[in-house]
């Protein structure tokens, strides 16, 4: 059985939406699916639709994570477009993860353009890490609505505040230049709040606000 777990996203003091994490129930526990490829895009989209229908009113966006292979897969583009049409009052955000998997910049741009045509938002996850470096970010910027910066990547570093501030400044400015929304995730402590407060993210999320929780759906998927 697969379900989405949702982590709260806030815009100022408003609960604006959830980041949805796919989990599979095996051996009495909810875990990250070992084999993501065993689910079809249709199953993924059906679960997404059922999950959106179970969310409280007032929620305005949900984001899901796709690695590069799924991101450029035309069946995902088609099925997520269907989900967006069915759930027209909810903004679906497709987060492209930073894990490199050999997709070319052209393939990623074409996919992002296709998502945009279907009114889906594209978010570049963990900007500045993995494959989501500045060259890809700039190339995809016309088709992207959000840059997401991950504070948690710096938590184990010494001089956290001094190290992360220039990065936040840089990506905040990139978001301004490319007219996209800036999202910061990974808030865990008050220090994170103090450091990141000056960078005026439109959306924030992290364990400090809420941990992911199971979203019960009404229909069978």
């Amino acid at each position, binding site marked *: 059985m697969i379900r989405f777990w949702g982590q709260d996203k806030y*815009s100022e*003091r408003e609960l604006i939406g959830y980041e949805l994490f796919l989990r599979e129930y095996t051996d009495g526990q909810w875990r990250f699916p070992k084999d993501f490829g065993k689910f079809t895009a249709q199953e993924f989209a059906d679960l997404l639709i059922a999950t959106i229908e179970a969310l409280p009113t007032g929620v305005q966006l949900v984001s899901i994570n796709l690695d590069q292979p799924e991101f450029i897969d035309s069946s995902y583009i088609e099925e997520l477009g269907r989900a967006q049409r069915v759930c027209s*009052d909810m903004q679906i955000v497709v987060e492209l993860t930073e894990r490199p998997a050999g997709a070319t910049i052209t393939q990623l741009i074409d996919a992002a353009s296709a998502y945009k045509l279907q009114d889906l938002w594209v978010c570049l996850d963990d900007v500045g890490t993995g494959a989501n470096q500045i060259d890809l970010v700039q190339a995809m910027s016309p088709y992207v609505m959000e840059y997401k910066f991950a504070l948690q990547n710096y938590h184990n570093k010494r001089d956290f505040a001094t190290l992360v501030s220039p990065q936040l400044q840089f990506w905040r400015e990139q978001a301004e230049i490319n007219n996209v929304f800036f999202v910061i995730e990974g808030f865990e402590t008050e220090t994170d709040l103090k450091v990141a407060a000056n960078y005026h993210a439109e959306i924030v999320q992290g364990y400090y606000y809420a941990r992911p929780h199971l979203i019960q759906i009404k229909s069978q998927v």
Partner: protein
Amino acid sequence: MQKNARFRRHIIAVGDALSDMVMPNIGAFIAWGLMLSMFGKTGWFPNTDLATLVTNLGHYLLPIMIGYTGGKMTGGQRGGLVASIATLGLITAMQDLTLLGAMIIGPLSGWITHYMDEEFRRHVRQGFELIVNNFSAGFLGIGMSLVAYFGLAPIISWMSTALALAANWLINIHLIPLANVIVEPAKVLFLNNAINHGLLNPLGKEQAAHLGQSILFLIETNPGPGLGILMAYAIFGSGTPKRSAPAAIVIHFLGGIHEIYFPYVLKHPTMFLAVIAGGVTGTFTFNLLDIGLRADPAPGSIISILLLTPPSLHSYLGVLAGVAASTIVSFAVAAALMPHVSVELKQRTTDLAAKNNGALHIIVTGTAGMGSPAMGARILQNQLQQRGTKNFSVTTEPISELHDTRGAIIFVRNDLVELVRDQAPDAQDIIGVQNYLRAEQYRHFSIAH
């Protein structure tokens, strides 16, 4: 002619700014006035300890809140912070209520903070923004509090004393009714304390000690002028002032919290003529009928005034006649000026349109603390720009802070439409949306709307 019009617009702008600093803090004034009426020396339940609380409320909280509001108007949260520190400098230097001074130092501190932030931000090295922000606010606060202490406080004290001397001169040459020409504007500008404490109360106590009553206790506390203004707004006004005036009448006339009508005058400075005419009429009537009170009524509610009226039919009727006469005159002048108030409103709209080069003003709003309206505003702006639409501006502010809504198009979440309708009855249209981030209404919206 153009110079006159420009001068009038400046006066209106100053009045707007003063009113905008007072209005959000009216609740604090009400709390102060009510506590004074309950626990003050001449209150219903006099209590020395609680009277100290009331004194501190008036002496510290009210000016700091006004200063903070003024600083926030021009410099955001940081401006408000610097303004609060500066206001404390003013309070320390002055013994009287420092409200007018707070209304000057507040916006000034906010503007300076905003200017310094804009000028120096680009020179700050990456990684030092937090430290620079915090220390700069502290240093600016110190500087502005010294400016307030050494610079502004003496000027305000001098103005207050000058007004008291002028009122004293009028009383000495037996032109008591004309004292209201100075007292009424001074009261609305919060400059009346020197007149009250330095002139009217001491002289009034002396008179009352010899004669059993003094007209001087009625010069500033007569609720008639304010009542007339509020009644005129309630009947002939429009928009939010019309809707809020009835409740303000109760708070003013029965509660004795005169500050509630000050924004109505500050917003439209022509109304000074109404309060002056009402005040002069009232004092003339009291003088003609030889009416006075036994002590200073604090607060100036009709109940306190009647309680301190000497116990005779002549005195009670005389007090009521004076209050009624001042109310009628103030009401009549305010009603006659109301069409000019509408013209001022239209002028403001024209000015706003001129400021926006005739552009359509679009507002995306929600309740305070919501971040999605600001995101929606950007999305709408981008869509309109991509369609080649020109001549528009998109802003975002919480419903409680909506202003300049005349002729605006307002987007708001469906369940908040009625709230916006109450707050912005002069908007051109209010459009409900289900989701600020992907509203169909943005797609179909065009400037020809």
